[in-house]
């Protein structure tokens, strides 16, 4: 049995005087202060709106997108699987008959309320056609009214896979 003996501090005279410890601590913080004052470019803070994060992984769940077939028609067949799986009930689909011969159904309306969405990714898991994905890498969606956060089919179709992510 390996027993790790943790050293107890505070018994020696130097520890009890407390002032050497304070001086050592103040030296450390002063070094950081002087280093950062001399060259603030080393600071860990990124100046956010000007400098965007570059460490978003391929598995990051951003704003959704609807994928397309090779002929640029919508891949979704309006099966309602995603809306059923959605725990936040933020997906609203209205189906219509498909006339381009690709399939039987397609969505007439496909809206997602991004204020309701919890970005859990269940819709992506549920989709049998790989028609909905969350790989846009969009992490901040900005709007001034509630209505602007309800995104429609055109917006979702225009979203593309983030260019920072590797090709799938």
């Amino acid at each position: 049995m390996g027993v790790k003996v943790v050293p107890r501090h505070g018994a020696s005279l130097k520890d009890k005087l407390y002032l050497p410890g304070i001086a050592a601590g103040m030296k450390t913080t002063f070094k950081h202060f002087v280093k950062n004052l001399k060259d603030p470019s080393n600071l860990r803070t990124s100046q956010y709106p000007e400098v965007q994060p570059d460490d978003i992984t391929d598995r990051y769940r951003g704003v959704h997108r609807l994928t397309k077939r090779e002929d640029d028609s919508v891949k979704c067949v309006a099966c309602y699987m995603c809306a059923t799986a959605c725990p936040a009930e933020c997906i609203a689909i209205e189906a219509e008959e498909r006339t381009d011969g690709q399939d039987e159904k397609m969505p007439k309306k496909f809206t997602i309320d991004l204020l309701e969405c919890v970005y859990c990714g269940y819709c992506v898991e549920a989709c049998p056609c790989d028609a909905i994905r969350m790989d846009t890498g969009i992490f901040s969606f900005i709007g001034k009214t509630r209505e602007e956060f309800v995104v429609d089919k055109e917006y979702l179709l225009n979203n593309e896979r983030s260019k920072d992510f590797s090709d799938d």
Partner: protein
Amino acid sequence: MSSASIIVVIVNILLAVILAVGTTPIMVWWERRVAGFIQDRTGPNRCDIGGFRLGGLIQSFADMLKLVFKEDFLPSYIKYKFFYTISPAIVFFCSFLTFAVIPFADTLVIDGFSYTMQAIPTQLGIMWFLAYAGLATYGIILGGYSSESKFGLLSSIRATAQVVSYEAAMGLSVISMLVTYGTIHLSDMVAFQGQVLFGFLPAWGIIMQPLAAIIFIVTAFAEANRAPFDLAEGESEIVAGYHTEYSAMRFGLFQVGEYAAMSASSAIIVTLFFGGYQIPWLDTAAIQSNIYVVFGAIAISLLMMTFVLTKWMKKHYTWANPDDSRAREGKILIKAFWIMTLVVCGVLVLFITTGLGTNGVNIATAVIQVGTFLLKFFMMSLVFIWVRWTLLRFRYDQLQMLGWKILLPLAILNIFVTATFVVVLGG
């Protein structure tokens, strides 16, 4: 009263007001930026007025405006509305009044009349400081007690325990300084510190009485309710302590009072232990006789400082987006700094070439000494901030142990040693 005396009095009162209250935004700014740099982050640097952010200083004014315009909320369950209302005022007022006795410069002589460079030329000196510094804690105790909250009450109890633990040691460490200096007047103490020990050491309090200096500085931190002794605030265990129930400008007054107490403590530490307005090896008479050399030295050092500052600004005072209005600020500020420096240097050169009368030399000496005092004062405030972002908060019982078992016996021992020295040396 002559017009000169009225001007001197107004200047003194203005200095005290500005140092006690007006420095609060600057202290808040320093606190945030120094904390940021110590922790490898930037601190507030975005808030601007017309593109001017002054290195983040504007954020303090924005926060102040926010506090002024917030709703002044009074909880309905507060029974002692009077105490609740006056307690922030007590903290603020007492911290502010401590500044009244700090000597900003040596006695100023204009047309044969001498003026004491203090806001209130009282004879009480250090006693005034002890009285008002002690009273400021009552604001905290009353505020916590009257806010009818468990957190407030706990904080009041902590503040009370704290005040009885450190005030005794503080008073005793001051007594050893009184024995050393042989006076209670702060201006006489500073005049004493203008001497030179053994031909090369400035006779500053910290060199003559290092133990008293350590005890006083430690207790002054507790006095000003600053870390590591800010257990009355204790945000990790009692929310915000005594100001949990306060909002808007009532809270703002507590905040200003805290910074005023910090300023007052740094001013009194500088006065007692770091020579006050004295420049080492250069007392008032020496400045007056070499006034033009001092002017030259000031002009050269000012030019050098501006050069270094503008060089740093050119390199680092930038904004990532060049189209933003904040990107232009650096160049404008560099120009403004150079213009200010050149104007001051021009005035100094003008004084050197034309020469000054006796009154002029005396006033210039006073201005130089006020500048020296300000420099030391801001350095000491920086130490307060630096310590806050280095040390951990003391536990309730640790502070009392420190106060009663260590600081108090050491202070008494120090008085004995000092008194023996003074008696043996035939003081």
